[in-house]
C-alpha cells in the first residue's frame, strides 16, 4: 500500500505544480475546461434548474463521483457564507439528526450533546448502538482503529445505555478531531477492520487523481488544505470544523468534517471533506466553485460542485450497480441542493 501512496503523491504533486485557476475568468469558459457540462444555459439555471452529470466509473474501485451546477441569488461571498452557516437540520429529507461547528482547537464539551440524539426508538440509531455494542478489539463493523475499538469496547462494557455510548463516542470523536487539527491529512488514523486497512486520505487522493482537470483547477486550495503533500511553501489554511450525526442508507452515521474556502479573484472555491465517517462509507469530499453571473437583468451566483465518495459496497459492485450508485448519489445530493436553494427564500 505504501508504494501506491508514494506514487499517488508524486503524480499529485506534479499535477498541482502545473496550473492554477484563472482569476476573474468567464465562468462558462472556465467550467468547460474542467467540468462535464459542454452546454450551460444560465437562464434555466437562474429559473431554478439543476444540471447534473454522473462521473465516469473510476479505476479506483471504491470511488464514485457526480457533478452538478445550479444558481442561487446573492454574490459568491454571500453564498459561501450561507454554505458555512446553513443549517441542514431544517431540511427533513436530508435526515440530519445533529450538526455542530467545532472550535480550533476543539474541546470535549463540543461533543457533549451527542448522546441527546441517540434515541434508540429510531431504527437507524438502534442499528448504530447495536454495532457499537458489537465492537471489540478484534472486530468491528464500524470504521475504527484497533485501539479505538478496544477503548470503545471497554467504555461500553461499563454502561451500554445510549447516554454512555454517546459519551464514549464523544471521547473518540474528540480524539480524532484533535488529531486532525494538529496533523491534517498527513497522519490520519486508518480503519483497521476492513480486508486491508483503509486510509481515508489516500482514498480522497485516489479519487482526485482520476479527475485531473478538476485537481488542476483546485490545486491551490488542495495544497493549502494539505491534501497534497509538498505544500510546505504554501501557507496552511484553517478550515471550519464540524461533527454531524445523520442517516446514511438507513444507518445512523457520525462524521467529522472540515471545510476550506478560498477567494480566487471574483469567485470562490470551497472543499468540504468528511475526513472521518463512522460507517456505511469511508469518506467523501465536495468541491465547489462559485462565480457571479448575470442574465437579462438578473444576477446571482453560479455554483458548480463535484461530489466524491468512497464506500466499501462499491468495491465489488457490478458495473450497472456502480452506474446506479452514481445516479443515486447524484439524486441524494440534489435533495441537498434543493434545500440549499430554498434556504435563500427564507430570511
Amino acid at each position, binding site marked *: 500500500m505504501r508504494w501506491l501512496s508514494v506514487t499517488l503523491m508524486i503524480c499529485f504533486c506534479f499535477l498541482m505544480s502545473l496550473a492554477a485557476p484563472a482569476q476573474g475568468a468567464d465562468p462558462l469558459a472556465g467550467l468547460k475546461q474542467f467540468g462535464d457540462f459542454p452546454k450551460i444555459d444560465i437562464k434555466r439555471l437562474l429559473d431554478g434548474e439543476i444540471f447534473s452529470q454522473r462521473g465516469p466509473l473510476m479505476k479506483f474501485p471504491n470511488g464514485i463521483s457526480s457533478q452538478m451546477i445550479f444558481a442561487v441569488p446573492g454574490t459568491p461571498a454571500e453564498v459561501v457564507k450561507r454554505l458555512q452557516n446553513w443549517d441542514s437540520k431544517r431540511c427533513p429529507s436530508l435526515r440530519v439528526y445533529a450538526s455542530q461547528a467545532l472550535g480550533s482547537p476543539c474541546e470535549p464539551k463540543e461533543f457533549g450533546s451527542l448522546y441527546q440524539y441517540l434515541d434508540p426508538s429510531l431504527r437507524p440509531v438502534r442499528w448504530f448502538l447495536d454495532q457499537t455494542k458489537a465492537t471489540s478489539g478484534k472486530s468491528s463493523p464500524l470504521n475504527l482503529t484497533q485501539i479505538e475499538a478496544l477503548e470503545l469496547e471497554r467504555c461500553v462494557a461499563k454502561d451500554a445505555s445510549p447516554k454512555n455510548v454517546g459519551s464514549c463516542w464523544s471521547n473518540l470523536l474528540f480524539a480524532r478531531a484533535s488529531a486532525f487539527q494538529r496533523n491534517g491529512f498527513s497522519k490520519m488514523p486508518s480503519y483497521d477492520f476492513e480486508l486491508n486497512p483503509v486510509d481515508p486520505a489516500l482514498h480522497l487522493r485516489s479519487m482526485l487523481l482520476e479527475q485531473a482537470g478538476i485537481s488542476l483547477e483546485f490545486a491551490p486550495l488542495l495544497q493549502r488544505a494539505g491534501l497534497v503533500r509538498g505544500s510546505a511553501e504554501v501557507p496552511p489554511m484553517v478550515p471550519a470544523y464540524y461533527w454531524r450525526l445523520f442517516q446514511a442508507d*438507513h444507518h445512523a452515521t457520525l462524521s467529522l468534517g472540515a471545510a476550506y474556502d478560498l477567494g480566487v479573484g471574483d469567485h470562490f472555491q470551497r472543499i468540504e471533506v468528511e475526513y472521518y465517517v463512522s460507517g456505511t462509507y469511508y469518506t467523501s469530499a465536495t468541491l465547489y466553485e462559485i462565480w457571479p453571473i448575470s442574465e437579462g437583468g438578473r444576477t446571482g451566483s453560479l455554483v458548480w460542485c463535484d461530489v466524491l465518495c468512497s464506500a466499501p459496497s462499491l468495491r465489488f459492485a457490478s*458495473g450497472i450497480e456502480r452506474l446506479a450508485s452514481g445516479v443515486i448519489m*447524484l*439524486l441524494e445530493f440534489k435533495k441537498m441542493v434543493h434545500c440549499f436553494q430554498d434556504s435563500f427564500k427564507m430570511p
Partner: protein
Amino acid sequence: MKYGCYQKGIMVSLLAALLVLPARVSNAESIPVFQEFDATQGLVGRSRTLRDNLHVGPVGELNSDLKYVVSPQISKDLLLRVGAEWQRFSFLDRQHAAQPDSLQQANGILGLDYQFAEQWLMRAELQPGLYGDLDQFSWRSFDAPLKLGFAYLVDADLQWFFGLRVDVRSQYPVFPAAGVRWKFADLWTLDMVLPNPRLEYDVSDKLQAYLGAAILAGTYRVGDHYGDERGLPQLNRAWLDYAEFRLGPGFSWKARPNLTLEAEAGYVLYRSWDFFDQHVNPTSRPLPSLQFALHARF
C-alpha cells in the same frame, strides 16, 4: 441421467474461460472492468408414486446454472457485457411420455448496460446459443433470445423496472414485465423484480431473510427422434416452452464483500413442458424444492 462427453465439454470450456478471462481482464488496467460469476444448483423432490417402467428415484429434478460475465466500461455511460452461460434441467421423474429427460442451454452473452437519461438505466442482452436436450449437437437448436430491461431510479429507496423478453422461437415471442424495488422500512425491502421477486428482511448487515418466488423459463428444441422414442412422432424436432414457478423462504448471506451465498427451500408450484405447436403440454403437481446459489463479483 448421465452427463455425456458433450456436456462435460461444455463444463470444461466454461471453467477454462473462467480461469483464463480474469487474467486477461486484469491486464486491461486502463479501463474499469467488472466481472460477475453466478452458480446455482437446485433439487426438486418427487411427490407421488410413478407409473411402471418410468424412472423412480429420490430426486425429481436437478437444475444447474453457471454464468460468467465480464463488463468493461466503453464510455462514461456505456458498459459492454460479454460472457457465457450453461444451464441444465435434468428431469428424473418422468410422469408423461412427452416430458423430456433433460433440457440444456449453452449460450454466449453479448450485451450492454447504458445510462440514457439522468434517472434511466437500461440493459440489453442477447443470448445466442444452443437450446435443447443437446443429446445431439445440432445447429437447429440455435436460438438467440433478447432481454431488454429498463430501470427508473427515483431515489435510494425506490426504483421501477420494465423489461421485455424477445424470443422468436417461443409461443410468446414478446413477453413484457414490470417491477419495483421499494425499501419501505429500515429493515424491509419489497423487491418485485422478475425473475426473482422477493420480500426481504435484513437480519443483519450480512444476513438477509426473504420470502421469494422464482420463475425459471426457456425455449428449447428436442431431437430429431425425440417423438419416435416416446410414441409421439409429432414431437420430433419440436420446440417447447419450459416454465417452472417456485415459492419459498430463503436466506442470503454475504460471506465476504464479494461473495454472497443463498439457500432456499420451498415448493415448485408449477412446471410445464409446452409443445405449443403440437398442443401437448404436460404439467406436474407441486413438488418440494431446495436451491443453493453463489454470486461472486470481482
